[in-house]
């Protein structure tokens, strides 16, 4: 059996990858590892895509990332964002 929350994080991670690939039209984003930095470097998402992503997370998982994580530490990588969302999700 997976540790509690583990399956949730994996499935949120997949959801976020799929959303990013569709939003940007870049299929390679389906393969990015959890340690990937989403903003600034590595895949270089722009602010418009970032905003779309956060709005989609709010719609799909009921989590207001910008409102609940004032330092936005959760946005460091795909994995930290997925963990943050999985922990608080109430879809």
């Amino acid at each position, binding site marked *: 059996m997976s540790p509690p929350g583990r399956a949730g994080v994996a499935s949120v991670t997949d959801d976020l990858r799929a959303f990013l690939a*569709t*939003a940007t*039209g870049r299929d*390679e984003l389906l393969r*990015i590892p959890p340690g*990937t*930095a989403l903003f600034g*470097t*590595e*895949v*270089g998402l*722009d*602010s*418009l895509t970032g*905003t*779309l992503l956060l*709005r*989609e997370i709010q*719609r799909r998982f009921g989590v207001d990332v910008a409102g609940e994580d004032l330092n*936005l530490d959760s946005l460091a990588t795909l994995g930290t964002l997925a963990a943050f969302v999985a922990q608080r999700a109430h879809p």
Partner: protein
Amino acid sequence: MPPGSTVPPCETAAPGTARISRNAVPSGDTIDVWWFDTRTVAVTPAGLAGLDRGERSRAEAFLFPADRHRYQVAHVLLRQVLASYAGTAPARLPLDREPCPRCGAAGKPVLRPRSGARPVPSFSLAHSGDTVVIAVAGHPVGVDVERDADRCVCSLAGALHPADTAWVTGLDGERERHRAIIACWVRAEAVLKCTGQGIGHGLGGFPVRPGQSPALSGNGCMVRRLAAPPGYRAAVALAGSGDVAEVCARKWP
């Protein structure tokens, strides 16, 4: 000239050619705008040698070669364009970052004036997909470009100023709304890049929708739509009030 009208390209030497000359820093409320298609530009070892350590390590950090290429092209071209105004070698440009006026974090890239040297221009760089745009002016300027929406972007409407959100959501037709959202987005982002305020503080603090009195919108900046390549939407903002006097569009190659 009405906002958004197409401006004929100005006569200047293109960067990367043997005849890079001295471009004069635009005077008054005039803006030079340089467009590039990253698919048609090769990065040369000489161009890459002009990048500083920060730019090189940032380029190295990209996961995908296509992103690295776009970043390198944008920054090599930025240095070449700026060098043509500053009259210095691309590697020797006095680039620095200004603190964000809201939080003090390192933000807007600027050229530092040097005593006795020629006046340095203000500039702004934006890229989206394969398109790079560089705006150059005599005082603070901001530019943004985004791809036209090919899927629903209605969730972005809530990030805009409430008056712009109301305008956008009141428009008839989904396509019309999506276009208007992206149009407002590029205008707002151009304003933030002009004032140097980080986008992390939000872009809904001031209205930017087209057709408003300049005195009521733009957060102290003149905002104007830019004629962009097909499939893209762009805007430019210049510090001050009134209207941008002229946009000089330059294309390369």
